């Protein structure tokens, strides 16, 4: 009985830790020396081990175009489109945003807020996919365990459409 209580208490603790942990992202969009440059469409999401989507974190595209015309090219982020995008209506509140220029972009997700508060403990990956008009497409994956036991700095490097991708976990 006491054991049960203890594990219940522990489970509660873990659940609370999960809620308190934070996820920070630093996404680099490289400066490219090309004749015709358009800012890339970028999708950032949390992926389950079976490649299904646990949560969308951000989608940067031409949100301001009239009649939602910017949505026409969302399919070019083909992995994200298959796993998540095609199931949704655009724009998506709290996820859709304008395209970003070359440079480093900081994103912070608080453990108590959406979508991390609903994230069950387990193995996930941050996935960043970029597709650029008259350019290429690239996908970068950074696996991590949730909730983090300690502060962690994970990173991966894109090759042409993405630069350095950093994932910072704070328990």
């Amino acid at each position, binding site marked *: 009985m006491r054991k049960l209580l203890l594990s219940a208490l522990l489970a509660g603790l873990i659940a609370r830790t999960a809620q308190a942990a934070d996820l920070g992202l630093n996404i680099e969009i490289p400066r490219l020396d090309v004749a015709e440059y358009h800012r890339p469409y970028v999708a950032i999401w949390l992926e389950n081990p079976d490649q299904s989507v646990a949560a969308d974190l951000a989608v940067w595209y031409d949100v301001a175009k009239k*009649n*939602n*015309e910017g*949505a*026409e*090219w*969302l*399919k070019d982020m*083909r*992995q994200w*489109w*298959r796993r998540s*995008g*095609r*199931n949704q209506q655009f724009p998506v509140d709290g996820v859709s945003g304008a395209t970003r220029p070359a440079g480093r972009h900081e994103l912070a997700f608080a453990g108590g807020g959406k979508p991390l508060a609903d994230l069950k403990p387990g193995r996930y990956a941050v996935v960043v996919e970029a597709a650029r008009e008259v350019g290429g497409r690239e996908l970068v994956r950074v696996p991590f365990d949730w909730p983090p036991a300690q502060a962690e700095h994970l990173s991966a490097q894109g090759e042409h459409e993405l630069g350095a991708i950093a994932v910072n976990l704070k328990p």
Partner: protein
Amino acid sequence: MKTAIRFAAALALALPAAAHAHDAWMRPSSTVLSGTDSWITVDAAVGNDKFYFNHAPLRLDNLVIVAPDGKPAEAQNQNRGKLRSTFDLQLSQTGTYRIAVVNDGVFARWKQDGQPKRYFGKPDGLAAAVPAQAQELEISQSLGRVETFATAGKPSPLQPVGKGLELVPVTHPNDLYAGETATFQMMLDGKPAAALDVAIVPGGSRYRDQINEIEVTTGQDGKFQVQWPQPGLYWVEARAEDDRTSVPKASKRRLSYSATLEVLQP
């Protein structure tokens, strides 16, 4: 008379099972789309090399497009060129469009005063075409479907047609990726078509030395699987023959099915 011959010849081209010479296929400009009210354009042709236009256009008289809600959709800007037919289609609903050319006709041949004669066309024109004194009359029915699929947004379920030879998706035809295995079921008049040979031909043969055709046979449940070796367009084809005719005096029924499927890079 001249028009009749031309019509018959053209119909023969549109009925590959009857002609036994060339394959028919469609080539959609896109199969997976985002955004709303997107357009696709589709080429349709008859010829052996997938998907090159080098023989004849496919007649669009029997073009049937079914929208995601099950209602018919209208093709725009139909045109028949020397080597291909084209039409445009607006995907105004979310879901999957089934785009098909369905040919349901008869082929008759006989001798009249020692001369060989023949008729290709609709069954209701048969009586007028064949004289009472026709000798060695042979009539066969032909039912063929040439189709492709395009999806705006989320793929929607496809209802089986239930008539003739058809491919019923287990894996959705607009959710195909290189390296993955897709499962389909072949049906004949709505029932599993067992032990049926299915040919799967990748496009782009002009830029390689081999056709690289994949040959599979359906199981007892009519199902077959294919692991896509690379992204691109594929032509999937099957033929059958039986005696379940509906036209009087027809001795056999020829059935054919072909679909153009796009496999994406994951």
